[in-house]
């Protein structure tokens, strides 16, 4: 058995010791994990992204454009706050805001683009493509006897209902206010049911994934100690 395997097995037992209650072995494993994970992330970020940028890989044909990311990085240093009780550098923090604003602006644009073209459009297209047209359910199977028709109807009603559940409601006004309130309540009620069904299924999937990880670790330990069949 290699040293690495012994270390990994000891760490596994140290984490599982939490089942007996909070204890120093678990706390050591927890802090070891955070320290190693932060160090690993910094090394990956430095060698895979920052170092190539320092050598001008972002815009190899233009030194000026290649320097822009470095300027933003230097500005970002101003956002590192001093420890409590030390001298304040609040004046410098405003300079760092420019770099943060750049990150937020680009991030917001990617989020809007991703939401519109990566989620909204494909999901609306998929919902709109569900056919309720009788012509699509001709002989030999009539529409109402088709499983696909009822499935399409259920998906359509469920999607609209769930979407209505997120509707921002205000006190209804005008002659059709009561009608509007009743209409919204009916669909959001269906939506609440659909959300509970979905959350039930998602919860079950989460349970399954965690139990699969647990089984994986137990099997690995059994293999390490030669106890597997």
């Amino acid at each position, binding site marked *: 058995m290699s040293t690495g395997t012994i270390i990994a*097995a000891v760490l596994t037992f140290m*984490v*599982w010791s*939490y089942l007996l209650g909070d204890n120093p072995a678990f*706390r050591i494993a*927890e*802090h*070891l*994990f955070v*320290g*190693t*994970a932060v*160090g*690993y992330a*910094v*090394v990956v*970020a*430095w*060698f895979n992204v*920052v170092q190539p940028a320092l050598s001008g890989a*972002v815009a190899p044909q233009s030194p000026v454009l290649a320097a822009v*990311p470095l300027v*933003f990085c230097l500005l*970002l240093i101003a956002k*590192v706050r001093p420890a409590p009780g030390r001298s304040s550098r*609040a004046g410098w923090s405003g300079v760092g805001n420019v770099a*943060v604003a*750049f*990150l*937020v*602006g*680009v991030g*917001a*644009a990617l989020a*809007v*683009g*991703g*939401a*519109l*073209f990566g*989620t*909204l459009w494909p999901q609306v297209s998929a919902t709109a493509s569900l056919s309720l047209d009788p012509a699509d359910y001709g002989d030999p199977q009539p529409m109402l006897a088709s499983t696909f028709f009822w499935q399409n109807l*259920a998906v359509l009603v*469920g*999607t*609209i*209902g*769930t979407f209505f*559940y997120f509707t921002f409601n205000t006190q209804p006004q005008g002659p059709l206010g009561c009608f509007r309130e009743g209409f919204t309540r009916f669909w959001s009620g269906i939506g609440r*049911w*659909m*959300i*509970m069904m979905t959350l*039930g299924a*998602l919860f*079950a*999937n989460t349970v399954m994934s*965690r139990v699969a*990880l647990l089984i*994986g670790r137990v099997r690995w330990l059994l293999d390490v100690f030669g106890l597997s069949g």
Partner: protein
Amino acid sequence: MVSRILSTVVAMTAGLLVLANFFFYSDPIGALSLYLVRTASVVAAFALVLGGVNVLTVHLNKIYSRDKGWGYSMVLLGALLFTLGVGFLTGGPASIPMQNIFETVLFPLEATLFSLLAFFVVTAAYRAFRVKSFETGLFVVFGLIVLLGQVPVGAMLWDQFPVIKDWVLDVPAMAGARGILLGVALGTAATGLRVLLGIDRPYADRRPPTTDR
């Protein structure tokens, strides 16, 4: 004041240029958008490095002032400095020593911590699976169907459990997830547009509250 205006101009200009690439197929806009996204990824990676520096200073202060749990901070700092040292001295994350750290420490700890959640999820399920209303009844029934449809014992109890599980995931769960996704996408787009139009400015420093007498 100047940095406030400059920050807003930078956020709006960079954001709108990147967003324009989603709507207009043009080579100059595409190239500019790609450059801005690459620049942002470099700045984000550098922010991660600064985050590491922040963790270092926080725990150094904790050790220096002998705060509660300073011994654990020493373990964290030791692990952090050791990983950084190995990473920078051996040439990055692809080196053999760094791969050994990943396989010996990082992966086992991460997998075991997530496997530990299995116990807590099961106890949470015990609390959640108490039927108090029709809605919680739906949650319980659909959760149990999906659970029983995925394990061998479910198929042994009734061979239709996997079939019903597939139907649940394909029809009601998909409809609910689709509705939730539509709501989230619209919310994301609205929030993002507020930032791009300068209505929300999360990057600006908050001014201390003024006291009125």
